[in-house]
């Protein structure tokens, strides 16, 4: 027999606190579609994805309805297209991206990730073609997401790739100048990219994964915030140790939901269940914000002094609660700070409480990195690359995933607004120190060697 408080508190999370499963992402291995004949590759990709993903959306909707928990996004992640299409040219890879977009539309998923390359140690021919194809591929499609891993703790930072990505991001922005550089919202540059991220834009299916796998991204910043608010209302003097415990318990509940739904979707599709990604992922809606949690914890706004400590507490507690709740944890598993996608963080940027420096600092204690950060359109490719390099260094040295999703908004300056729409939100453009100028350090290129794994201070 259930108790009424168990039922009422669960309904409260669903109805008023935006508890949902943020994404169920079907990973599909496309390595058996590789080849040097474009038409053949496209045919194979089309038939493999449609065959496996045909029922993804109806099954997710059915399971969501059964439990009364919406699965907000249904997505697909595929093997790195730089590997699948290693024999293809850049223009042919654009055609592959267009096909992926069409297939995504056909099976009714909002994003398909995996237009990706792994170049942390060197750039192979296929990788170079894919990176070259990214601007056109993302400008010509709506649903395709790209990611490039340019660094890892074991390999170091591939600075040639970093500079190449700086240029690629600038080109992608220019090709979508009429949409405030929207293509850049679909490119993530990574250090230590996990192989099983369900969240976009970084989702792809790693080389070491099975033929098909279901990964789940949970969410729940609204639930965490309300739990903190309620506890502090009952006891103003609650100390941070107790708040951490509270967040742990709340993260446990949120994660259990993701695990239950993910496993049932996987069972129904007869596909193996992969991981739950324990990330607090916001949306641009009031009450579904990571930024608001900082205010509940007593900070004026995310970005003011105390932010890094608060985020460290939050991120760690979410992981502890989530790790206990799920038997398979993976992906990024940390709080996201996507500036434009979080109404509250976006407002902090507008008011000047948070800038590039503080955003970079807090990525040392959370995933993912400089996420959905709109920067002035006149920021040079070298400066974009330099921002990426800084972020990669934090990941490589600290043995964690970091990433950037930077949008140099064409024709706009710091303080202007950029609008991306939907879940991607909108943001004030954040100033960049020495933005338009050259950067000789970046031009050196080469490889920043892998770091020592001891003497860790």
């Amino acid at each position: 027999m259930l108790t009424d408080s168990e039922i009422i508190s669960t309904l409260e999370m669903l109805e008023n606190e935006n508890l949902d499963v943020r994404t169920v992402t079907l990973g599909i291995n496309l390595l058996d579609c590789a080849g040097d004949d474009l038409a053949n590759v496209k045919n194979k990709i089309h038939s493999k994805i449609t065959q496996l993903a045909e029922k993804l959306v109806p099954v997710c909707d059915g399971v969501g309805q059964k439990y009364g928990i919406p699965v907000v996004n249904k997505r697909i992640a595929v093997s790195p297209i730089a590997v699948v299409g290693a024999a293809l040219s850049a223009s042919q890879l654009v055609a592959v991206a267009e096909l992926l977009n069409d297939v995504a539309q056909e099976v009714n998923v909002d994003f398909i990730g995996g237009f990706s390359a792994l170049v942390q140690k060197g750039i192979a021919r296929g990788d170079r073609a894919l990176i070259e194809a990214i601007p056109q591929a993302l400008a010509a499609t709506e649903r395709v997401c790209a990611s490039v891993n340019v660094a890892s703790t074991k390999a170091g930072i591939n600075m040639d790739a970093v500079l190449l990505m700086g240029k690629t991001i600038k080109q992608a922005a220019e090709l979508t100048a009429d949409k405030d550089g929207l293509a850049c919202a679909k490119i993530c540059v990574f250090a230590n990219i996990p192989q099983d991220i369900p969240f976009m834009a970084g989702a792809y299916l790693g080389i070491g994964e099975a033929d098909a796998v279901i990964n789940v991204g949970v969410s729940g910043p609204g639930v965490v915030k309300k739990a903190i608010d309620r506890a502090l209302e009952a006891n103003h003097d609650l100390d941070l140790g107790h708040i951490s415990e509270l967040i742990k318990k709340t993260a446990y509940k949120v994660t259990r939901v993701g695990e239950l739904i993910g496993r049932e979707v996987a069972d129904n599709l007869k596909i193996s269940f992969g991981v739950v990604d324990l990330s607090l992922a916001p949306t641009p809606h009031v009450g579904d914000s990571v930024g608001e949690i900082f205010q509940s914890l007593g900070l004026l706004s995310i970005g003011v002094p105390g932010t890094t400590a608060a985020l460290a507490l939050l991120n760690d507690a979410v992981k502890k609660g989530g790790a206990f709740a799920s038997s398979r944890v993976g992906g990024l598993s940390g709080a996201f700070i996507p500036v434009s996608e979080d109404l509250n963080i976006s407002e902090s940027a507008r008011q000047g409480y948070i800038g590039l420096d503080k955003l970079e600092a807090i990525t040392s204690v959370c995933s993912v990195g400089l996420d959905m950060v709109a920067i002035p359109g006149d920021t040079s490719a070298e400066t974009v690359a330099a921002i990426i390099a800084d972020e990669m260094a934090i990941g490589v040295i600290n043995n964690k995933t970091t990433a950037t999703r930077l949008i140099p908004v064409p024709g706009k300056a710091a303080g202007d607004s950029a609008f991306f729409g939907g879940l991607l939100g909108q943001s004030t453009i954040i100033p960049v120190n020495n933005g338009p100028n050259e950067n000789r350090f970046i031009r050196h290129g080469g490889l920043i060697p892998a770091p020592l794994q001891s003497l860790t201070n």
Partner: protein
Amino acid sequence: MNKVILSVLGHDRPGIVAAVARILFEQHCNIENVSQTILQTEFAGSFILTLPPDLLPEELRKILIAEGSLMDMHVHIEPIADESAAFHSRPSEPFVITTKGPDRKGLVAGISAAIARYGINITNLQAVFKGGDAPGNNIMIYEVDIPSDIDQKTFYQELRETAESLTLDISIQHRNIFETINRI
């Protein structure tokens, strides 16, 4: 098998269960199941018992009502139906139906009628009506077993329409979600 169900109803106070249990012990009855609840000021207890061969249910009832501490309680004893006559649910899944909305007459009747029309068994019901228009103060929670062979879509739709006509917000969820979230 001399199996009976004993129900004891009356104003709640300490000592009711102790008095009943002592008499049952003295009369060599075996208690198989007990469930008790308190609704506002009133006690309700149900006991499933096996009686010794020489004790008739009516005799036991007389002994119980003669007990001083149970004087003003209502005591009822009824033989339990044969196993063959008992209700057996078809293969089914456990769901929880919750409604919230302003208090008015006929809410339980309306919702439970819709549930009964589909042959769905209510396994537990908790309802609180504190009155007024605050939805949170007026809540019904039905735990039900929905047979797998009924047309769930039509049932959901009919239940939602019934709820709407009673100005209730309704949710229908598989029971596992509550257990998963709240229990380790």
